[in-house]
């Protein structure tokens, strides 16, 4: 796979717009849905070296776009997403479209139904352009451990990064983060306006952060998990990735709410049609958890954290240090609980009803064993083994029950902080910007997950909403993002604060090495900043 010299062309101008902007352009007739869809698919092809997509659904996408055009032409668009191209992580079921979880186990599997969140987007007229790459069964934090290979961070193909690199673009590139790396890369590389990820321990926010896109992990239960192939049922949530907070809010409004197919979903609180344009940040109290000054936090990231905290303070918000004493134990407990549910959830993959089946069939047990050995990678197998160990009758109290108790304490910590008057917590999303692939794979998946998920997974343990917003580029030219954590079901308030933050930080538009018309791009960046800031 080689990176072409001119990857992102300004011809993709339309592609770098936000959903709000492009939706308007569609209605104004400045672009048609089929044109837009074609551009996205072209962009996917042009950036195929990123390895962000597993399946490209060009044909059905063009049909959907055609229908959207018909509606728009007759003045009856279905809503703000009608005709908007989107992509979906390949662990969400899509009817009649392969859903692989980047695993040999589900290679070629075609689900007979669509996940509720996917269906809701389709029902709104959004156009599905493809299924995105990930770590196998979403187990990982780098998008380096899927059967289809690692995903490359689009920002490692920008002029800034390439100019610093002395190496070949095929050997020196940064990871996308994971496990929803493909979705993050798709949004960052302008091949989708919106992508769905899943977030169990940070799998939406981590790649969102490293790829410089807005990534929202909603409150647990606010979005249906029906059709999301589970990792940890008690922590999984569908995640939303866009290039602006406003867009994320638009999508949240469409996806949220009770689903009779998922008994853990809750009624969504009533939300206004869009985020408030005028919002007084002085009413907000921002908590800075001191335990998030973790070892390994990069100076760039720390600097961003301080800078944004200062921005809040200068704007009149109350900024206050808080303590989450049990946070340090969270990652260990997360791993125990994660492995237990993984062991249980993966039990259904026996080669009998669907998916890979071994040719060894000397006995039922032999067939199960070889099917599972051949179908799962090392990471998955290890988690299954650990999980089954933790769940043994003699170990259950020592591991599972203890981890659950700790989970409650972690949740209590967060509740107490919010009870004390804090509205949102401001934290780093990851320890640093994206690692070079060659550096990242020096350590195994287990170690990397523990490092990468350290700031993100406590939120999953407690079921709270969190959003990551890119704030600046590191010295290496890679995105650095900060995370805002909100109270249960206060997703809207969280996004309101995130929107304010986004307006202050002026994160740049991606600008790829080899893009010729720089002035056009610059104008685009200004336009977009202006729109968001207005």
């Amino acid at each position: 796979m080689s990176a072409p010299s001119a990857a992102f062309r300004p011809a993709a101008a339309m592609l770098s717009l936000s959903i709000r902007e492009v939706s308007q352009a569609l209605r104004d007739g400045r672009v048609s849905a089929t044109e837009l869809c074609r551009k996205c698919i072209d962009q996917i092809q042009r950036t195929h070296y990123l390895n962000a997509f597993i399946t490209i659904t060009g044909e059905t996408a063009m049909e959907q776009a055609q229908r959207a055009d018909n509606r728009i032409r007759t003045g009856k668009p279905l809503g703000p997403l009608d005709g908007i191209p989107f992509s979906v992580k390949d662990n969400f079921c899509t009817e009649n479209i392969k859903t692989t979880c980047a695993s040999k186990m589900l290679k070629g599997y075609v689900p007979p139904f669509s996940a509720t969140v996917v269906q809701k987007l389709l029902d709104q007229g959004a156009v599905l352009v493809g299924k995105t790459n990930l770590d196998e069964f979403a187990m990982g934090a780098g998008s380096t451990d899927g059967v289809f290979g690692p995903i490359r961070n689009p920002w490692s193909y920008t002029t800034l990064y390439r100019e610093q690199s002395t190496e070949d673009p095929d050997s020196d590139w940064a990871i996308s983060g994971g496990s929803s790396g493909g979705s993050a890369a798709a949004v960052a590389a302008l091949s989708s306006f919106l992508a769905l990820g899943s977030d169990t321990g940070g799998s939406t926010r981590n790649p969102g952060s490293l790829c410089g896109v807005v990534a929202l992990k909603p409150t647990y239960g606010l979005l249906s998990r029906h059709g999301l192939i589970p990792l940890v049922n008690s922590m999984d949530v569908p995640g939303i990735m866009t290039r602006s907070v406003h867009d994320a809010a638009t999508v949240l409004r469409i996806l949220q709410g009770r689903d009779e197919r998922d008994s853990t979903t809750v009624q969504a609180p009533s939300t206004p049609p869009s985020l408030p344009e005028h919002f007084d940040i002085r009413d907000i109290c921002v908590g800075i958890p001191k335990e998030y000054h973790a070892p390994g936090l990069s100076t760039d990231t720390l600097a961003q954290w301080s800078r944004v905290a200062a921005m809040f303070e200068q704007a009149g918000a109350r900024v206050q240090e808080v303590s989450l004493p049990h946070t340090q134990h969270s990652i260990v407990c997360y791993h125990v609980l994660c492995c237990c549910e993984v062991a249980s959830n993966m039990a259904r993959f026996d080669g009998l009803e669907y998916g890979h089946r071994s040719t060894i069939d000397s006995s039922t047990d032999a067939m199960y064993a070889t099917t599972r050995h051949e179908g799962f990678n090392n990471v998955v197998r290890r988690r299954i083994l650990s999980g089954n160990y933790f769940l043994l009758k003699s170990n259950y109290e020592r591991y599972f029950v203890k981890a659950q108790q700790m989970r409650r304490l972690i949740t209590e910590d967060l509740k107490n902080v919010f009870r004390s008057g804090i509205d949102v917590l401001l934290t780093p999303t990851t320890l640093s910007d994206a690692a070079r692939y060659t550096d990242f794979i020096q350590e195994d998946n287990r170690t990397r997950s523990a490092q990468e998920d350290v700031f993100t997974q406590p939120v999953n343990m407690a079921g709270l909403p969190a959003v990551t917003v890119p704030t600046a580029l590191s010295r290496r030219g890679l995105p650095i993002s900060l995370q805002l954590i909100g109270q249960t079901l206060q997703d809207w308030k969280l996004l309101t604060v995130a929107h304010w933050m986004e307006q202050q930080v002026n994160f740049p538009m991606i600008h790829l090495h080899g893009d010729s018309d720089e002035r056009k791009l610059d104008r685009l960046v200004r336009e977009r900043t202006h729109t968001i800031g207005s």
Partner: protein
Amino acid sequence: MGVEVYSSLSYFTLASSCRLCKTTFTICPHTNTSMATSSSGYSRMFCKLRKYANKSQSLYHIDSFNLVIRRIWTSGSKTQLQPKVHTKSLPQMVGVVGLEVHAQIQSTSKLFSGSHVRFLAPPNSLVSHFDASLPGTLPVLNRRCVEAAVLTGLALNCTINRKSLFDRKHYFYADMPAGYQITQQRVPIAVNGMLVYSHFEGRRRNQVVTKSVKIKQIQLEQDSGKSLHDDEQSQTLIDLNRAGVGLMELVMEPEMCCGEEAAAAVRELQLILQALGTCQANMAEGQLRVDANVSVHRPGEPLGVRTEVKNINSVRHLAKAIDYEIQRQMEVLQSAGKVLNETRAFDSKSGNTIPMRDKEGLQDYRFMPEPNLPPLFVYKSEASVPAGVDPAQVVVIDRLSAQLPELPSVKRTRLVETYGILQEHSFTLVNEDGLMDYFENVVQTTKAEPRKVIGWVIKELMGNLNSQNLKVSQSPISPCALAELINLAESGHISSSTAKQVFQEMWKAPEKTVGQIVKEQDLWMINDKEELQKICRRIVDSHPEEVQIIRRGNKKVLNKLMGEVQRETKGRTDPVQVRAILEKMVS
């Protein structure tokens, strides 16, 4: 596309050998001689054992067999079967029986999916995405199943847990597609109940003894699919129609002592479930599956090592399997052997229990909470339903209590008290589906005493039904027709012996009315005094010897003359009238 789409009307196939098929049959030398033919109930078992003992005299010392027999007796109902002679100072060994009952919930759809529930549907035709464990599907609890469990819990005097939880129980088995079963291990829906049941004792088996057994818990859980093992082609076929059907698992404490008690308890449970409409409770169709935990010990000592007996498909076999197993364990212990904690299958052909190969040794089910189902809440009353929750969408105990039908024990008491019938007859009326209604219908449309009606219903009606293997609802004689017949007999228009004859005619020709049959066959009672006189005169004249004997004082011989009159008139005379006439003539 490569996806393995399961199609209806087809099985999932899986070429392999089956664990169950590798079962080795170990036959104990003590057991292969008897107990093979069908027997039910306790007294018959006793006869079998006697034969067994006699047959085996040449092989074994007789004393040990006497001991066996006596011990078996003590495991049975104590009042009748208690041995009179105690030869040893040690207390006698007794059997201890606990039951685990899986009752398939009668509902139109499965416990966690919308698939229909139907017996004998084409293979894999009732399988939803969830039932086939397609990844990404989630369980959605069926309220009807919860209501069935609560109703059953209420009928069995259980405490209903306002909050219960679901757990996953893991094991790999081809007919359990998710690799785990959703059940209620930690906090089940109902606990601490009691099942009251009765059985018969006494020489004529008409003495009703009432007993009770504690119900530890009732839990909701999923049924598994079915595996069919094709040994010839060495493959296993899977039918998932049953996978995910709602089950109530009822766990009874080990408080019973023999097969007959267990059988009576299960029979009563069947009646209760059927009355509630929560389970059809047909063991042969697998709607009710009973596993028996059996051990033996000396009273006062800790319970012995238990075995679990499975594969029992009728109440009759349940009694047999348990009694066999108690006897087997006693023999093992007596010959200084050890009872193994194992699962045994009942073989209905031989009447034996045989060890099943254990599912790969010790099973660790690795229980964990089911994360996709929030706690199940049921509410006491509509008033206790929290705000924001639609009372119509939740399970309310008071609402279900009000729906409880008349339970079998209450029915029986009412029948005895209202109609003055024997207790044993009340059992028959309630046991037979529809018989009680039939009886009450007849009683309401006839002037005859209920005690007379019961004779007709139990002897004539049930006799005919049983001999032709018919259900009450299939009776060719309606309650109305029977009432009409009884009325004719009561009013003296036909004699009681004629009535029985007419009953059989009606059975054969249900399209005819009682009146038609009586008229056609000329069965009306001869009430004309002169005609009666004539007939009697003929009989007296043709039996001079008998008349002589009567006149000499032997009045008994008058009965013979009466018999002759009956024969002559085909029973169409009133014996009281005939006797009076004959007495006059011979005096």
